[in-house]
């Protein structure tokens, strides 16, 4: 184990029928940094994120979180280690309000015992106040404090993405996986997200970020891994990546083709 690496992919492969979504992907994510994951549509970025969160098993290879193999764990076990995520196609609890979404996201924080509730003990109230305060803090960090009681289904696209990030933060994660978090956001929102991600990293959180917006990736990420047809083209600093001829050809050149998946 290389010291300082929070997440290490070792020759991770995954196929869907005949499609090799990932073949022998290896790289490491330094703790308390923002690591970018870029590549053309269908290059396996989301699949890789699914492997990390346990939604998709790896056919071969190893995945280490904080030095510990996690590729055989079920999703809730991986979450319990401190891994939270958002989804490319946003998965909110649309029947709940914004505040309720975040409270639901506090599952691993505990402190919602039935017994106290049943007998209306004071501790139930105290626990509830704390959970409410925490949830409000997450909402305001994500910049949607004003929409507390709005049904999640009624939010604008950018607000939905931010609510999903707020819900992921409720878990107080060590590693945050963000799948195209600023897709569909307006410029001002993008700037807010940028400072949010920076402050999270400053507080010790590690972020693995999938994003098609190259200027955003280039100015925010400490290091970047480029995927192409399920293989790692390279891992390096934004400067190195921008100069790599294969990257320019494979990805930066094809910028116009991006779409929402």
């Amino acid at each position: 184990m290389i010291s300082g690496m929070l997440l290490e992919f070792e020759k991770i492969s995954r196929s869907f029928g005949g499609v090799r979504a990932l073949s022998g992907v290896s790289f490491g994510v330094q703790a308390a940094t923002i690591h970018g994951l870029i590549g053309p549509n269908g290059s396996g970025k989301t699949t890789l994120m699914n492997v990390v969160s346990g939604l998709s098993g790896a056919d071969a290879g190893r995945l280490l979180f904080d030095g510990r193999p996690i590729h055989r764990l079920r999703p809730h076990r991986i979450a319990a280690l401190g891994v939270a995520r958002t989804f490319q196609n946003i998965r909110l609890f649309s029947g709940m309000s914004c505040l309720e979404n975040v409270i639901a996201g506090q599952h691993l924080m505990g402190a919602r015992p039935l017994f106290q509730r049943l007998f209306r003990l004071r501790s139930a109230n105290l626990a509830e106040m704390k959970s409410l305060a925490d949830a409000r803090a997450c909402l305001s960090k994500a910049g949607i404090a004003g929409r507390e009681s709005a049904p999640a289904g009624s939010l604008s696209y950018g607000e939905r993405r931010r609510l999903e990030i707020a819900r992921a933060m409720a878990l107080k994660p060590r590693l945050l996986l963000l799948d195209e978090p600023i897709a569909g956001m307006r410029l001002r929102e993008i700037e807010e997200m940028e400072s949010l991600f920076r402050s999270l990293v400053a507080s010790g959180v590690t972020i693995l970020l999938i994003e098609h917006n190259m200027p955003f990736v280039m100015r925010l990420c400490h290091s970047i891994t480029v995927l192409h047809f399920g293989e790692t083209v390279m891992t390096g600093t934004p400067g190195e990546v921008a100069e790599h001829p294969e990257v320019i050809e494979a990805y930066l050149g094809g910028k116009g083709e991006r779409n929402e998946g």
Partner: protein
Amino acid sequence: MKLPADLPAGAASRADRGLAIRLRRRAAEVVALSEFFAVYGSLINFAGLNALLALSLYVPLSAGQLSLGNAAFAGIGAYVSALLTMRLNVPFPMSVAAGGCLAAAVAMAIGAPVLRIKGIFLAMATLAFGEVVRICAVNLSITGGAEGLIGIPNKTTAVMIYGALAATAYFLTALRWSQTGWSFASIREDETAAMVMGINTTRYKNVAFILGAFIAGIAGGLYAHLNFIITPAEFGFSAEVQLLIYNIVGGTRSVFGPIVGALILTAIPEALRAAGVTAGPLRLGVNGLILLLVILYLPNGLSSLFAKKR
């Protein structure tokens, strides 16, 4: 209760006369209430039991699991408790509790394989389970075959039924704000999102299924000791669907939805009978119409009418 005629003769002062009138009125009320109960007592009892059964289905529904096996769990509770009181002279409360526990145990056994299935296929699998239970009851000799069990001692009272209903409703309301309740709600909204936020979805789906079966089993035991006779047919397909209809009509966004749905749909046919509508199909047709209107115009059920006003 003393009748008004027996009031003290010396009630001469105005105050006393006022008291006498009030007492007379009160006595009349009590008489009216007991008459009402004599006529509608069984309706009141059955409405309460239906509400309890509706709640038993509400639990898995609140965790997003469409189970159609709860009438069968009620059947298990009914047969087990009835047999315990009749054959082994087990005290009534204990036999009802045992019925609930056995229903829960069966749910625990079948939950592991069945809850891997999702949506409409889960509904079909639990329905098939219900058929198996019914066929067992028809073919076993201990359950009395198709004729069922006859001569179950009448022990259940309205107080017990409504006590159980109130306790269950209170428990489920408290549960809603607990770790378990939030997990149920998260799974119902989006199972994948629930998983990655650390919820052991398999475990909580099983908890919901087992808890629902337990409540159904208790309701079944109370039903058996109310009714003198139970038959396998009562716990079959149409009963399963009936429970689902209570939930759809009342709504499953709160504990009160299924209760309201069950009370209204049980009472309406009887109210219509009292109003002189004697044709059976017409009376049940009104319930069908209500179901249709709710599905079309109130996706969250009748209880959303009250929620909106607040």
